[in-house]
């Protein structure tokens, strides 16, 4: 965890590894703890926890690995999830509730319900996704405090 307090707020950065289901959720748990220590409103904490958890799980399940970076600013929380590929073939389709490319094995564990990206969009005030097949995927989200 990289935590710097300066005039732009607090920056938290976490590496998320591919297929690491044991540690999946740790980044979002840590982010939640920091927000709680800062006395952030409980609804904002809950929405941030949902958004970062879904981003984290998506990186674990679908990507080659990546990072989650969170900036806690006086008026908002910015979350950036970036991975190193392999990219989403059809972002419009991926945004639909229930659409998932997860394997049966992953689904049996309760993941891959096709709710990850829709949940991120639903619980944040601003949501932006950029992805190309064969390249990386970046999700930027903002929740206003």
């Amino acid at each position: 965890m990289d935590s710097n307090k300066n005039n732009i707020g607090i920056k938290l950065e976490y590496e998320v590894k591919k297929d690491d289901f044991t540690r999946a959720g740790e980044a979002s748990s840590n982010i939640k703890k920091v927000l709680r220590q800062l006395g952030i409103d409980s609804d904002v904490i809950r929405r941030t926890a949902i958004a970062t958890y879904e981003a984290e799980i998506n990186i674990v399940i679908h990507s080659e690995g990546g990072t989650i970076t969170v900036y806690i600013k006086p008026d908002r929380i910015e979350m950036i999830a970036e991975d190193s590929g392999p990219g989403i073939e059809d972002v419009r389709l991926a945004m639909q509730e229930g659409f998932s490319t997860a394997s049966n094995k992953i689904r049996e564990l309760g993941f891959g319900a096709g709710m990850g990206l829709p949940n991120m969009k639903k619980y944040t005030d601003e949501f932006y996704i950029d992805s190309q097949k064969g390249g990386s995927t970046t999700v930027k989200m903002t929740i206003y405090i």
Partner: protein
Amino acid sequence: MIVKDLVEKFNFKLLTERDGLEKSVDGVYCCDLLSWVMSHAKNNDAWITVQTHVNVVAVASLLNLSCVIIPESIEVDEDTIAKAKKEGIPILSTDLNAYGIFSKFYEAGMR
């Protein structure tokens, strides 16, 4: 109702330690799709799920759920119990199925 009541009155078996037993149980939620739970379960819900892997603890912790209830005496991974102890999330087990568990809560006055 608090988590301790589920152990003492419903005879659910506590798989973790005493941490979290004083947490309030305000509702009951049952679902095995983790993202669906993330989106719909509420603070202080007791969560019934057949999922027993370690990520269940992350979901319960992130949502401030009061406890996890494993139905039909499904065996829970050791890693999950260890993580739950660390996070202070009670995991309870019962031989009842989900309907039986809901019935217990209803009979105890949760309407």
